């Protein structure tokens, strides 16, 4: 990997990590959801820093091309992320349903009180 590319990648990943930290700091992203992204960023950082480590690892797994390994990991990570998101959505769905039901019942109680 040419040095220029390496530096560019490292810079990109650093910006990415700073963005995550900034979001957490301004409370737009909750810390527990940021962990996966931070982990992702750190792994990418390590990958970008040391190419020999990557090819060694690819060798170990029996993958011929380093790029193939990167693609594989990318896919795995994206699937994990979407799966986590679906789980979160399901959970929130349940909570919203509960809330809507309670609000409905409360509205009824309130109407009853007004009529008394």
């Amino acid at each position, binding site marked *: 990997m040419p040095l220029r590319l390496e530096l560019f990648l490292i810079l990109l990943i650093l910006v990415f990590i700073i963005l995550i930290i900034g979001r957490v700091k301004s409370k737009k992203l909750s810390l527990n959801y940021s962990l996966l992204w931070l982990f992702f960023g750190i792994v990418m950082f390590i990958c970008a820093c040391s190419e020999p480590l990557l090819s060694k690892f690819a060798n170990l797994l029996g993958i011929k091309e380093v790029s193939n390994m990167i693609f594989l990991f990318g896919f795995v990570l994206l699937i994990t992320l979407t799966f986590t998101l679906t789980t979160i959505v399901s959970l929130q769905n349940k909570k919203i*349903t509960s809330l809507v039901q309670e609000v409905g019942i409360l509205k009824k109680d309130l109407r009853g009180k007004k009529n008394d």
Partner: protein
Amino acid sequence: MKVLVIIPAYNEEENILNTCNEIKKLKIKEHQVDYVVINDASKDNTKQVCINNQLNLIDLPCNLGIGGAVQTGYKYAYMNDYDVAIQFDGDGQHNASYIKDLLDEISNGNDLVIGSRYISDLNTFRSTAMRRVGSNILRWLIKICTNIEVTDPTSGFRACSKKVIEEFAKDYPIDYPEPETVAIIAKKCYKVKDIPVEMNERQGGTSSINALKSVYYMIKVGLAIVFAGLFTKGDVK
């Protein structure tokens, strides 16, 4: 016994008043029969019709689908300490004169009593061939997974005992809940029974299941029954 008739309503402005009047007319010995309409954020004037006629109404702020709407009724029944809850469609499909039969079976010690279209000889309900095939597959699945036989698992006309009200108040499926809840309740070793009822043809509105959705319906409900069979803990009541 204190009985609550739960009437879920979505876009039922034409039928809801008739349905409620039928329930109000009911006089059953030894039972106090109340009703509650759950308006699932209808787009038509269902809410206004209910308020103008002073029907007992729970008005949901967002559309939850049939499962969420019905569960609201069970939660209401649970909070207000009802002994029996009866699910009764707001579209005029169910016949109020059979409520007494359902209640009798609850008094006999059953926990979930289902009004079935397929037992009665005098039944006028015209079911399509596809519908019967689907229904039979679900019956068969429930038989395998929970070892009980119900003739009409998709029927939304049913009565629940106090214990089952509590179960439903805690947990209820979001969409197409009928067969799944039968499986869960059977698996938990409650007594399930079906009795013959007549159902009317729809008096208005449109059915919630169209041809396109039926494939999704079968897969979702089938899977739900299998999951209920595999993972519901059968604690003996």
